[in-house]
């Protein structure tokens, strides 16, 4: 079998016109718990090998699993966020296979009675503007295996069981995606939802999210599914998209040549941009699933599920719609502000407190994002409270500080956490609007720049900006430019006491 690269050829392009890609995804997500699924061992990433193990996750003779409540809660949050029906009774099952990183010789998973089923995820809009939905077949709970390291010692595989027993959910989609781009959109939307709901940290790099894809090709217009292959070993969302393209191209080539696609597992080699078949044959597995006798059925009362549902934050899609309608923001701004749940909540708090969503959006996307980017700070620990930023916006609107001064004040707020009024006062940045002070500065400018003053008084209106600049400079930015303009205009008109 030759490997197939993603490089397109004319023949491949033609095949793509003729065939349609059909994709379903299986996503493993690590739940954000402090301890493992069935024992008290910590789930910390990066501990020394086998330190986070105990009788239970080492599968010592006689040890027994006890399920983590938080894992059930997080799995249920995910299921409900994906619009699934949570089963009142779900059953844990043993999936039996031998592997050194699987201490018990079976993985505790769920099989024919999973936690939840029949969900859906909107991943975008169709050309006609309708929701583009991917069906969620099921969400089930299971435990992770340990890690096998093959390249550390010669002739030996090294096993680290720190991850063994870490709680996961597997989210299985229907074969509803028709392109690698849709698969990418599905994964990005899913990631955002899992972050929004606090279910997972969702990092492919740290292995808290892993993706397998089922891919098949069929003639356009055909309604039956073609023979699928399973593609594994993808380490990023873009890797998934590239792997799907490569595998689809391979299948198209096989079909074009009059062959049939063999049901098998393909491995993605990201470095080479190729897929190649895993050696084992599909069907050589016989996992001998049976109900896990150490764990009674998991019973989730509807009232409990309702409570979990009520505690869910607004989902990204709903929030985007609402931001657009309620705050009249542009699509690009909405996208940016809802990219993370914390950012969205922060914005909303500022918008509500200030009563000025546009200004709030500008501040959050502008100064605030720039400051966070520059310092690498986390929004959770950011010193500027939404109420204080709202106060600052109010000060600008009321004319108490200039927008230039406001930026300086914001920097100081971010540094010290002090309130904007305090800073403005302390730094002498409050705008001066009293005529007495302004007239004093105008008098000085008049005396220091007689030539400009004369020409302006003679009707050369374009010099007004220059003179205002002089006044602003003299006032160190504190002068209210609007009033300065009025006073200058009055003086030019010959009235007033200037």
């Amino acid at each position, binding site marked *: 079998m030759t490997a197939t690269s993603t490089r397109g050829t004319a023949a491949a392009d033609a095949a793509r016109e003729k065939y349609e890609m059909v994709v379903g995804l*299986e996503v*493993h997500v690590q739940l954000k718990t*402090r*301890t493992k699924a069935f024992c*008290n*061992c*910590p789930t910390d990433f990066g501990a*020394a*090998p*086998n330190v986070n193990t*105990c*009788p239970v996750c*080492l599968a010592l003779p006689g040890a027994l699993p006890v*399920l*983590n*409540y*938080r894992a059930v809660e997080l799995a249920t949050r995910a299921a409900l966020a994906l619009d699934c029906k949570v089963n009142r*009774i779900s059953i844990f099952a043993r999936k039996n*296979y*031998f592997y*050194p*990183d699987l201490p018990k010789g079976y*993985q505790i998973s769920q099989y024919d*009675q999973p936690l939840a089923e029949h969900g859906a995820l909107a991943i975008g809009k169709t050309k006609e503007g309708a929701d583009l939905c991917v069906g969620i077949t099921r969400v089930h709970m*299971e435990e*992770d*295996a*340990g*890690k*096998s*390291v*093959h*390249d*550390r*010692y*010669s002739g*030996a*595989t*090294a*096993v680290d*069981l720190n991850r063994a027993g870490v709680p*996961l959910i597997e989210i299985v989609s229907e074969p509803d995606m028709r392109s690698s781009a849709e698969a990418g959109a599905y994964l990005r939307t899913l990631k955002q939802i899992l972050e929004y709901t606090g279910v997972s940290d969702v990092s492919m790099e740290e*292995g808290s999210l892993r993706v*397998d894809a089922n891919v098949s090709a069929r003639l356009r217009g055909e309604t039956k599914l073609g023979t699928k292959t399973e593609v*594994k*070993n993808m380490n990023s969302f873009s890797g998934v998209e590239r792997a799907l393209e490569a595998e689809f191209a391979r299948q198209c080539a096989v079909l074009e040549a009059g062959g049939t696609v063999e049901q098998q597992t393909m*491995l993605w080699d990201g470095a080479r941009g190729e897929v190649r078949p895993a*050696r*084992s*044959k599909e069907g*050589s*597995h*016989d996992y001998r699933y049976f*109900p896990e*006798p150490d*764990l*009674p*059925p*998991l*019973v989730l009362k509807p009232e409990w599920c309702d409570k979990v549902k009520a505690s869910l934050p607004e989902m990204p899609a709903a929030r985007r719609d609402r931001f657009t309608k309620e705050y009249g923001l542009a699509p690009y701004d909405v996208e940016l502000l809802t990219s993370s749940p914390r950012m969205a909540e922060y914005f909303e708090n500022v918008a509500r407190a200030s009563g000025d969503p546009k200004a709030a959006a500008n501040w959050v996307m502008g100064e605030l994002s720039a400051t966070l980017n520059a310092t690498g700070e986390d929004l959770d620990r950011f010193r500027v409270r939404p109420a204080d930023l709202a106060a600052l916006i109010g000060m600008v609107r009321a004319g108490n500080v200039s927008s230039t001064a406001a930026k300086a004040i914001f920097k100081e707020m971010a540094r010290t956490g002090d309130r904007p009024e305090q800073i403005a006062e302390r730094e002498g940045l409050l705008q001066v609007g009293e005529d007495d002070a302004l007239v004093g500065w105008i008098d000085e400018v008049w005396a220091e720049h007689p030539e400009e003053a004369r020409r302006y008084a003679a009707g050369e209106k374009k010099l007004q900006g220059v003179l205002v600049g002089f006044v602003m400079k003299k006032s160190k930015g504190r002068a209210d430019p609007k009033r300065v303009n009025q006073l200058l205009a009055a003086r030019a008109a010959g009235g007033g006491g200037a």
Partner: protein
Amino acid sequence: MAVTEQDVRHIAGLARLGVADERLPSLVGELNHILEHMAVLEKVDTKSVDATVGVGSLAMPLREDAGPQLPLARSRDAFAPAVRDGFLLVPRLATHTALGASSVDDEDSGTEDLE
């Protein structure tokens, strides 16, 4: 239903039990003798039985996401056959696919040497 030598070889493989060829015929006989007695179950009417929920059928108690790690009175090195730098060592897999992979989504690498 009766098992054949091929069946026994297959299930011995699944169970990772090295069964010597000369032991196969007697094992086939023993297993079939036992299985004969199971045939009586076929005739039992179980249409109305829901056996999905186990005996006792108490709901599952859950634990808090906290608590001290269960202690080990002896270090892992004291009972593990081969340990190095804290890792458990096993003979190198004949082939493998991804470095540092977990078998949960990549158990193929473990079953490859089945054939």
